[in-house]
């Protein structure tokens, strides 16, 4: 049992905005009262629900490929030293698994969603997730370039395609569905891309990226998956892609969707010389379409490594930078590309990207629908989130950061005209309550009775980045894991999954198609349930109700 008394609580899920309130914890949950146990005097301190990352890349083949490609970064970055209770590890651009858990928990994040998992290597992803301590985890399976499903959609077999999606979610032991560059990754297998939403995809007669978006969003809704289709639009990172993004969301036909890393999809202009931010236009559309949520995919200046299932984009980035390029195409399902990258304030394109991410966060007016992310490690590493919080909370700090940007940036961004400053209540919404709700994890990001006792306690400080980078206490599942900057306990987190319904004959239908394309036996393909450590299956909405629960 644990009591936290006298703290100033920000709990947007319950409309609590800076009230002094005592919290009681028993059995890992928040309860109405606790008679005994340790008492933390949080007088003068700020209390948030634990952070929730809706979109990050922390485990699996791609990030592990990135680790292999960046030994020079490991050598210069921070190192965790082992102790009796703590494993050693390396931080930096692509942190090792143990360090990932310590770094997330160290800044008060207690739930993370790994956004891109191929079924073929899902076993590997789960093995890595099991090695990330403290935080709870979930992951999304990549479907929008699965050729068995694409073939069915081309043949007009919608119902079958739906069964196949449900089967794959369970086979991957995933929590939801991610679509990356629909059709574009499949085309990349021939070195091509899919850049027009209404053009047939390479290798198909009639199937278009637009129709994949329409069908997949409907499938996810009909299966009752708690998290709507997680959508990475076509033409990521390309000047002028705002038109693709707007066209993509129209193909949703009003279905719910989460738009991943929106910053990378909000550009105007015709080429790299004329590229500019269209965040204002996109935010405007977004504000009037309540079926959408998004995460920023914000960029910070500095070194990182970019990894994405978007193979064509990574090849373009490699050609632009001339730096290392890793690419891994995964049979039938997806691919991934890896390129180390440095965002520089002196580089006009990078400066526009930096401003675009912040503009989206500041111009989308409902904090329940836009969440903090950097698409780790693509825009910046996750452990730099406190810097973004500071940029959102201080217009003066933003001005300071804009000073060194190239003068040519004028008229390409709107950031200088925005004076909005986030409140603590809004920050608590975009880093915790909002993403938890979008993920359908209703016991997270919520300090109400009966909810998971994932709690962060900050010292109130003028230096915002410091305050959010170094919480005084972090409590995960009722246990104090961080205290005064020290890692105290390293409990293992849970893994959330869903098991959507599929017709019993799906497997026999799939088997010959699978054997045709893959080179492993069908029995070896799905991840066995015993392999998921501390799994927790979340309910899907009943197939009848087309609206998932809010």
């Amino acid at each position, binding site marked *: 049992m644990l009591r936290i008394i006298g703290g100033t609580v920000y709990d947007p899920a319950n409309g609590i905005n800076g009230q002094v309130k005592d919290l009681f914890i028993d059995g890992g949950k928040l309860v109405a009262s606790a008679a005994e146990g340790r008492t933390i005097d949080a007088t003068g301190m700020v209390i948030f629900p634990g952070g929730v990352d809706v979109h990050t890349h922390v485990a699996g083949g791609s990030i592990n490929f990135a680790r292999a*490609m960046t030994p020079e970064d490991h050598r210069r970055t921070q190192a965790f030293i082992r102790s009796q209770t703590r494993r050693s590890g390396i931080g930096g651009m692509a942190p090792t698994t143990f360090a990932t858990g310590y770094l997330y928990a160290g800044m008060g994040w207690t739930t993370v969603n790994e956004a891109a998992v191929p079924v073929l290597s899902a076993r590997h992803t789960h093995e890595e997730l099991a090695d990330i301590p403290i935080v709870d985890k979930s992951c999304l399976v990549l479907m929008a370039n699965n050729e068995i499903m694409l073939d069915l959609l081309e043949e007009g077999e919608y119902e079958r395609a739906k069964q196949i999606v449900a089967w794959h979610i369970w086979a991957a032991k995933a929590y939801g569905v991610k679509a990356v560059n629909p059709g574009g990754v499949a085309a990349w297998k021939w070195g091509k891309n899919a850049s027009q939403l209404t053009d047939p995809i390479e290798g198909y007669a009639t199937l278009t990226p637009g129709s994949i978006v329409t069908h997949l969003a409907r499938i996810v809704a009909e299966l009752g998956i708690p998290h709507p289709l997680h959508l990475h639009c076509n033409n990521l990172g390309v000047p002028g892609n705002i038109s693709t993004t707007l066209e993509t969301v129209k193909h949703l036909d009003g279905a719910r969707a989460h738009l991943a890393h929106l910053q990378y999809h909000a550009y105007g202009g015709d080429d790299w010389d004329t590229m500019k931010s269209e965040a204002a236009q996109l935010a405007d559309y977004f504000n009037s379409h309540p079926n959408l949520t998004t995460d920023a995919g914000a960029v910070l200046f500095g070194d990182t490594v970019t990894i994405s299932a978007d193979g064509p984009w990574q090849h373009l980035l490699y050609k632009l930078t001339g730096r290392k390029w890793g690419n891994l195409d995964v049979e039938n399902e997806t691919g991934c590309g890896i390129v180390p990258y440095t965002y520089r304030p002196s580089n006009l394109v990078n400066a526009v990207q930096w401003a675009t991410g912040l503009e989206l966060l500041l111009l989308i007016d409902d904090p329940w629908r836009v969440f903090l992310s950097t698409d780790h490690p693509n825009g910046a590493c996750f452990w730099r989130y406190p810097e973004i919080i500071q940029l959102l909370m201080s217009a003066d700090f933003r001005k300071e950061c804009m000073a060194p940007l190239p003068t040519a940036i004028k008229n390409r961004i709107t950031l200088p005209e925005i004076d909005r400053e986030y409140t603590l209540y809004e920050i608590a919404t975009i880093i915790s309550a909002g993403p938890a709700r979008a993920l359908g994890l209703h016991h997270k990001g919520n300090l109400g009775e009966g909810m998971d006792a994932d709690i962060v306690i900050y010292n109130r400080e003028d230096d915002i980045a410091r305050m959010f980078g170094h919480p005084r206490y972090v409590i995960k599942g009722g246990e104090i894991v961080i205290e005064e900057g020290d890692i105290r306990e390293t409990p293992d987190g849970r893994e959330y999954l869903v098991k959507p319904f599929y017709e019993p004959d799906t497997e026999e239908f799939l088997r010959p198609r699978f054997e045709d394309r893959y080179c492993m036996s069908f029995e070896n393909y799905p991840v066995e349930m015993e392999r998921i450590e501390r799994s927790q299956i979340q309910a899907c909405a009943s197939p009848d109700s087309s609206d998932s629960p809010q």
Partner: protein
Amino acid sequence: MGGKVTCTLGEVKNRADFIVYWGGNPAECHPRHFTKYTLMQKSKFLPRGRKDRTVVMVDIRETKSVKAADIFLQVRPGKDFELMTILRAMVKDQEVSDEQIAETGLTREQLTDLIARMKGARFGVMFFGMGLSMTRGKHMNSAALLTLAAEMNAFTKFVAMPMRGHGNVTGADVIMRWQTGYPFGISFNRGYPRYNPGEFSTVDVLVRGDTDCAFIIGADPGATMPQPAIDHLAKIPTIVLDPHVTHTSRLARVHITTAPAGIAAPGTGYRMDEIPMPLRPALESPYPSDEEVVRRIKEAIAAKPDWMGQQPQMLLSQI
């Protein structure tokens, strides 16, 4: 420049109409490779199977695998790197002299023909074997081949893939990377992982006599390492976990017999393309698995009093 452009084996099976083996002998080293993944498979995109694929073998000698190839290019020993550099230049239409080509043991006609075929392919793949990665200039050779494959993407789809050795080498490499950031050659003696192959690789540590205990799982260094390394293993307490009696187990102070993985112990094996495969035991063994033994040793050590003392939690940057 560097990096690696690759794919899973199913992509090769489904799409590769142009396959190069460089310094590899799959017919003898990976007996199921041709039939399962590359040459013989038919697919939606290559309906006639072998007939739809062109296979090139580059090697210093005529191995058994050469019989399976359409084209054999016999490179002069030690000239792989030069040949790859010449190909990289010729692909980009840069000048290369006749003398430079002659040094590789091949003719301009052979190379022009090869490049035309590479550029004409829809999906090309280059496998490189031990013959390339373990000979003179090993890292340079692999890097040059990976770069050639990456650069070919300016013309058509091209990937490259190493043909890894026996056992679950790939799996060890994958796990070390997610836990420490590095694939092998790691030292933990400062309490956090440091990487320096050539200094921290097993053979270097043993030859220098820098270790006072050895714990060996699923490997037989006593059969392959240089004599000074083996001598040191015999001198120190060496503990071996192995289902069989091996050269190493004979010189070890302790040999714990374990159940053979994949036959009598479950687990995961990583394919050469880093795809994890579940291992399902067909037999029961009276012996514990490697995992069980390691876990029990770890628990016993954890039960001992804290011997590490106070250390900082973290270094903000390494020196």
